[in-house]
């Protein structure tokens, strides 16, 4: 942005803003709110819904405040009769094209169109209902995402999300005029296109046109089935997101209340995905060191850089777009899937249960986890390892349905056997977290000493930059790892698939060289996941990240290998990392997928 200041008046109040500022931003500076729909802070400007129009004195046309830059001497009215009439018309038009049976909509109460309709007193059904005759079909083909064109207002936020943030472009605008719609390649069902199920489109859809597929009723049924033992696992990012749905400001940690609520909902055991996050570090860290040893000592051909495999959106993206790099992915299952496989084997054994009677439910900040749970590879327990995946939002809804006064709940602890975790596992919820957790453990395995960063906080891998890189010099190795003495471990981190795409292109072209890469499909990592509370923006994600790191700092154990339950599972069940049993239950493989 330019340093040159532009002077203008908004509602007769002078304001001075840098050249290039939009009218919307300038108005915000004066605390005038201008309504928006197609505008989203994370995305490029579209200027197509026209609900943000304002009057510029002397101009024939109204201006879209989100798209129009300020100009010297401009006089803007954000609330003239002309403006209100145009906005009201825009809202009425959108409603006339929209299936407005709000009571039957998942987004009821969290819908930007609904809010505006209320605000502008649009309640007279002025125009003709255009929706009824259009015979929209609802695309329920995907296990993660439901696409309902009858609720779509064509703001194209989803299209921009899919293209700009994720570099996927599974959604695009098709046809024109009254037939214009948001569609997929050749209108194939969502399940058959390049969609990674990341759900970022859902987070930005202002209405209920894109929502996650819910499995709440199935979970209630399981809870109420006396023959079933229902275990629930909660991902690290859920504990810092859930509060937003239940009345807290972004950044509130509600771990203890969440555990209490889950117990009140009737789950037989409330356990923590963080346990398998720690386990992932044991497996993945060992895998990385093994690959490095093969490359450096045994001079074997081995795929480096190794890439994390926790994010199922990222995995599917890689399968579609970079099938040549599939060997670089860690063979580790994601923590969710490790948990599922162990819930029906190790956990069942310890509890004296039959795996077939265990129902495993996970609460995830992620919609792609729903897809992941259904992958055919994910049945190594002999059953579907994870039966149902609910998003943070769905859990919020269940808590509301149960009539639980969340804010007044006391804190409680996770149950045991797969309920213990460390700070290293918690930071899995933020971009760079898996990397940091892995480095804390790998460095200590190799050198016998903690990572040389103050308070274990490996700050270079943290932050919100799209692609980050760091390097750690390994010094003072224990004899077993002496071949790494003096080596510089180079790592990179990407979040948001568009950033991942850039990084993968560079890896493919050989223009960069790293040993280890962490990718999270969603901006900010899991804390910005497609199943997290709506709305989201940079500021909200930043607050959630701060909460994650605060949770880590507050934990007594902060390194995965120190988790006593993890130590126990190796002793009692798994043997050692990358051992035979680990291989069977905790590792997987990937398959190339077509681009179209």
């Amino acid at each position: 942005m330019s340093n040159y200041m532009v002077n203008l008046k908004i509602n007769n109040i002078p304001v001075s803003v840098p050249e290039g500022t939009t009218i919307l931003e300038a108005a915000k500076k004066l605390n005038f709110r201008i309504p928006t729909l197609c505008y989203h802070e994370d995305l490029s400007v579209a200027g197509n819904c026209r609900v943000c129009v304002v009057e510029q004195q002397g101009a024939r046309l109204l201006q879209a405040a989100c798209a129009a830059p300020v100009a010297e001497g401009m006089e803007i009215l954000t609330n003239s009769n002309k403006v209100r009439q145009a906005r009201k018309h825009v809202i009425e038009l959108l409603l006339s094209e929209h299936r407005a049976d709000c009571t039957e909509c998942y987004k009821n109460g969290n819908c930007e169109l609904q809010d505006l309709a209320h605000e502008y007193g649009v309640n007279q059904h002025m125009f003709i209902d255009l929706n009824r005759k259009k015979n929209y079909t609802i695309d329920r083909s995907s296990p993660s995402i439901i696409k309902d064109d009858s609720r779509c207002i064509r703001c194209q936020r989803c299209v921009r999300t899919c293209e700009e943030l994720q570099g996927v472009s599974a959604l695009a605008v098709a046809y024109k005029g009254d037939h214009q719609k948001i569609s997929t390649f050749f209108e194939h069902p969502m399940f058959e296109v390049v969609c990674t199920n990341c759900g970022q489109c859902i987070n930005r859809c202002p209405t209920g046109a894109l929502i996650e597929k819910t499995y709440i009723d199935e979970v209630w049924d399981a809870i109420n089935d006396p023959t079933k033992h229902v275990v629930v696992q909660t991902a690290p990012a859920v504990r810092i997101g859930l509060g937003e749905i239940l009345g807290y400001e972004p950044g509130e940690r509600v771990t203890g209340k969440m555990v209490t609520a889950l117990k009140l909902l009737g789950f037989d055991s409330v356990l923590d995905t963080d346990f398998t996050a720690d386990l992932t570090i044991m497996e993945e860290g060992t895998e990385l060191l093994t690959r490095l040893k093969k490359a450096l000592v045994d001079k074997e051909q081995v795929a480096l850089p190794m890439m994390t495999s926790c994010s199922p959106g990222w995995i599917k993206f890689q399968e579609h777009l970079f099938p040549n790099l599939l060997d670089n992915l860690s063979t580790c299952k994601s923590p969710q899937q490790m948990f599922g496989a162990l819930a029906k084997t190790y956990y069942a054994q310890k509890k004296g249960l039959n795996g077939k009677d265990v129902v495993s439910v996970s609460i995830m900040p992620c919609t792609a986890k729903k897809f992941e749970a259904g992958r055919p590879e994910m049945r190594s327990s002999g059953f579907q390892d994870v039966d149902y995946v609910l998003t943070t939002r769905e859990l919020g809804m269940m808590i509301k349905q149960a009539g639980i006064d969340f804010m007044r709940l006391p804190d409680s602890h996770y149950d045991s056997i797969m309920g213990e975790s460390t700070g290293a596992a918690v930071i899995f919820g933020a971009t760079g977290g898996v990397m940091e957790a892995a480095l804390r453990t790998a460095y200590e395995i190799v050198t016998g000493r903690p990572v040389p960063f103050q308070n274990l906080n490996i700050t270079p891998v943290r932050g919100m930059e799209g692609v980050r890189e760091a390097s750690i010099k390994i010094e003072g190795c224990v004899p077993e790892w002496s071949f790494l003495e003096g080596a510089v471990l180079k790592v990179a981190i990407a979040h948001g698939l568009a950033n991942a795409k850039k990084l993968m292109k560079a890896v493919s072209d050989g223009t960069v060289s790293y040993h280890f890469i962490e990718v999270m499909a969603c901006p900010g990592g899991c804390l910005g996941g497609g199943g997290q509370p709506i709305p989201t923006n940079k500021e909200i994600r930043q607050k959630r990240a701060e909460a994650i790191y605060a949770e880590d700092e507050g934990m007594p154990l902060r390194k995965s290998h120190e988790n006593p339950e993890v130590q126990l599972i190796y002793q009692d069940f798994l043997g050692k990392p990358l051992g035979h049993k680990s291989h069977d239950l905790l590792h997987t493989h990937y398959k190339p997928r077509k681009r179209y």
Partner: protein
Amino acid sequence: MENKLLKKVDLIFCKTCQDDIEVVKKAITRHPDEIINDLIDSGLKGRGGAGFPTGLKWKFTKNQDSAVKYVVCNADEGEPGTFKDREILDTVATKVFAGMAICGYCIGAKEGYMYLRGEYNFLLKKLNASLDEFNAKIKAAGLDFHIQLRSGSGAYICGEESALFESLEGKRGEPRNKPPYPTVAGFMGKPTVINNVETFVYTAMINHFGVAKFKELGTTDSRGSKVFSISGDTPKAGIYELELGMSVDEFVKEFGDGDTKAVQVGGASGHCVPRKKFNDTIIGFEGIPTGGSMMLFNSSRSMYNVLKDYLEFFTEESCGQCTPCRVGCQQLLKGIEAVKRGERPASYLEELKKLALSMKVAAKCGLGQSVANPFISIIDNFKEEIIY
């Protein structure tokens, strides 16, 4: 208000200036500023309909500090009732190329693109052949400028300049936000002069015949002549180059069939002038500006059907991106149908007029903004035909 009589003119199709390479050769001996100042002095306004002063457009683009600039010819003639550009391209295409080349010389562009509407693809072969010849000749004349042809797919919206750029860049044809204007960021985000076919010919002709001859024609607000596509209830349907500034009455005297009850000036997106206003409506920027389409209707025509046809057209051809245009067009169409069937009261037309006025100020581009023109002018002047 000046009021000219109907006068036929022969600049565009004239046979006395066919060697268009000579026009270009002559132009490039002059300083670009001289040529641009001539254009400004001539008062030439864009012949596509919006009527932006052509010389200023060139000047703004020339003044942009950019190593890469473009010249784009808008040959996406899609306005219902226009067919003049087709004739120009069919008979005097090299004059268009000459105008583009002179523009390229003036603003410092090395590449020019002609964007041809998909429905005119039958002209491609012939145009490409004459273009190859033209490109070779201007190269030989020492001008570093090359023109390429691109074919559209037949979407009306791609005649809107920013949607045309999107399409030319291989993307979906949807209008962009303005500002920035094409003179600052047009094709490929670079400063671009975009003019329509006819405008480029006039720039070449002003170079050839001189400013004085052009300024003899037209009125203060509407300099020169322009080409009209005349259709509907007229015994003389066809293409005519006429001096600007005549009244509709003058026009109807020449082209009407004695029973003309309305003239739609400016195509479907223009205004409908009823008989009682023929006398005091001037065809030009002081009255009703037009891209050239003139549709005459006699008393056998139902203005309800006329309006319904237009609205069906816009409902289909809206790109669908912005709310006022996408949904507004559908509501105007469904609205008049509902009134006609008696499902909504006649007073509903007033609500629709308000909606049309919102579209006029809130739609993103000229398409949505101009639907109010035919809608309001027909509703106001032929209300009884709409209702009963």
